[in-house]
């Protein structure tokens, strides 16, 4: 198991656990990143952060510090 920050661009992974709390956790999950969701890592921003993902057929981006707390496999 690793976290979402470590996933290379172009890979598809499945969410196992979200280790954040409060408003950030709610927001991440509200946007559709829930346990068992497939996530495709599409791109990294030119300055190295944030990362762009494809989830549930749409695109979103989040910061590496948050991605770090999303465990995937």
């Amino acid at each position, binding site marked *: 198991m690793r976290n979402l920050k470590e996933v290379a661009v172009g890979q598809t992974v499945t969410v196992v656990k979200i280790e954040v709390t409060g*408003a950030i956790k709610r927001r991440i999950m509200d946007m559709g990143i829930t346990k068992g969701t497939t996530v495709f890592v599409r791109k990294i921003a030119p300055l190295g952060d944030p990362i762009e993902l494809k989830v549930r057929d749409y695109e979103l981006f989040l910061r590496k510090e948050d991605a770090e707390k999303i465990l995937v496999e």
Partner: protein
Amino acid sequence: MITVLALVGNPNCGKTTMFNSLTGSDQYVGNWPGVTVAKKGGMLLNHPDCEVVDLPGIYSLSPYTLEEVVTRDFLVNEHPSVIINIVDASNLERNLYLTTQLLELEIPVVLALNMMDVVNSNGDEIDIARLAKELNCKVVPIAAINGSGVDELIKLAVEVAKEKVSNQALPIFNDTEEIAVRGIERLLPDRESTQLKRWLAIKIFERDPKVFEQIKISSNLLARMDALRNGCEKAEEDDAESIVINARYRYITSTLRDCIKKKLRTWELSVSDKIDNIVTNRVLALPIFFIIMWAVYYIAIQTLGSMSVESMQAVFGFISEQLTNLMVIGGVSLTIQSLIVDGVIGGVGAVLGFVPQITILFLFLSFLEDCGYMSRAAFIMDRAFRQFGLSGKSFIPMLVGTGCSVPGIMATRTIENEKDRRLTIMLTPFIPCSAKMPVFVLFAASLFPKHSWVGPSMYFWGIIMVVVSGMLLKRTSPFAGEPAPFVMEMPAYHMPGSRTVLKHTWEQVKSFILKAGTIVFAASVLVWFLQSFNTSLVLVEPTKSMLADIGHFLAPVFLPQGFGNWQAAFAAITGFLAKEAIVSTFAILAGSGDGAGSKADLVLTLQTIFTPASAYAFMIFTLLAAPCCAAVGAIRSEMGSWKWTLFAVGYQTGLAYLLAAIIYQVGSRL
């Protein structure tokens, strides 16, 4: 009785386009009480008894963001007649997540499936009848962009509103969860409300802090509810909030499996993907970003923008001249003449002079926002800006601020996060605007003729103060606390409708005229009054006016900065009206307001009033202290509160005072 139709949906679902076509030109835009989130409403075209309310674009009814809370409170407390839930059909899964929550509010819901054209061109098929049956609510396919299906939608919505039959909450839970939620529902005392019991039960189950603030339940009952929740959490090995979110998405996924037929995707990139591969490309993203920004700056601030400001000044100059001539002929007293020309027209001119420039700027910004580029800008710049507590979108206000702080401050509207937005509003005035330049040029030429670095160094100080302040303020209580989530959607590019862009622009310009305008006008008249009269209310020369008295009074305050003389204090006050007024003030004080050779007099006067060290301190003070009244008006209108406005202006002036003192004390000893 008026039927209220509430428009609810995710951001970028076509809600605004829909709202504009439903209400035509008959709209009002304001803020929700106490917060800066926009409140929009209007009467439905051809239905004089129906009002449409456009609620903020949201993804969920969570208790955390301002937009979500505003929407929730409106739906629960105001109980609109019907919710029109606009849904992006090309992204049903995430859009229906909000729908599952709306269906729990005991308000009739009609689902408007927007962007069906995208679905069709993708080759997907949605079984609308089946979807309506599963969700147990009316579903209408529409295309907001060309208005097809909208008439049918409205007819249906009004019908549903009259029937007053609300929808049933969807069966999102599994047995374990349902037992817990239903148990909580049964425990709810009747006096809490006979309505919304299911909704309340779910909210209590997921420990919604806002709901706990509102309801009063005995500790005995609460303990029994806790037990139900804990049992379920233990069984599912997850927290209640996550259980509910998972349940909603689980329900949607299984429902959609039966309602939507997706064409097998060939790995072909869409047009939007292709554009994005260039625009957010690792190498090209930054150059493209800077070229776009430069183009906006060059057109809206430099060429077209400054031309528009100059022509507005010419128009007002002409009006003043004609009016003066008329009043001289009519034998109007000098006091009234001065009031009308310098006070009223000066004030109105100060407000309206900005309007063409702001309009041009907002046309660009609305276009960039509506076509989807702004979220890319945030994606590209986020890392650079969040080092000092700002957002990826803070670049635009700062860049615009080099032209004028007023549109710069207003450009912060595209920043979602309230803290980032407030901080950007506070720091944008530190960037030297074009009105401060004449002051720097005059001082540099008069006191530092051999040092060409003095003028440009103001940009350096401005940027340093933005960075330092950002890093400092980020650690203070108003801006610290739990970091706000930064999870943003990257919508597909699309060509915005000209109507939407124009409407968007007009709303911003109107709000500037109304909100900032009143402050600018009042300040102009006040400064005119102080500058034109002495304490016996006799019209006098500025050097003998009340403002000069105030200058004498305030002068000692600026002793640590080395410019503790009344002329400098006087100029600082007129600078509040408009920064470039500092130059004309010194010209008047030098007794060279009108006449040849005045420039030499002016330089000589400045050389007697200032030393190089105190002059540099004065430049720093001008750069950082409370911006002009127009910018303060913009801060007030964007902050939405006087408390925040005073905090911002107080911080700016305090920092200016401190840094100017340090510069003088160090500089005069060198």
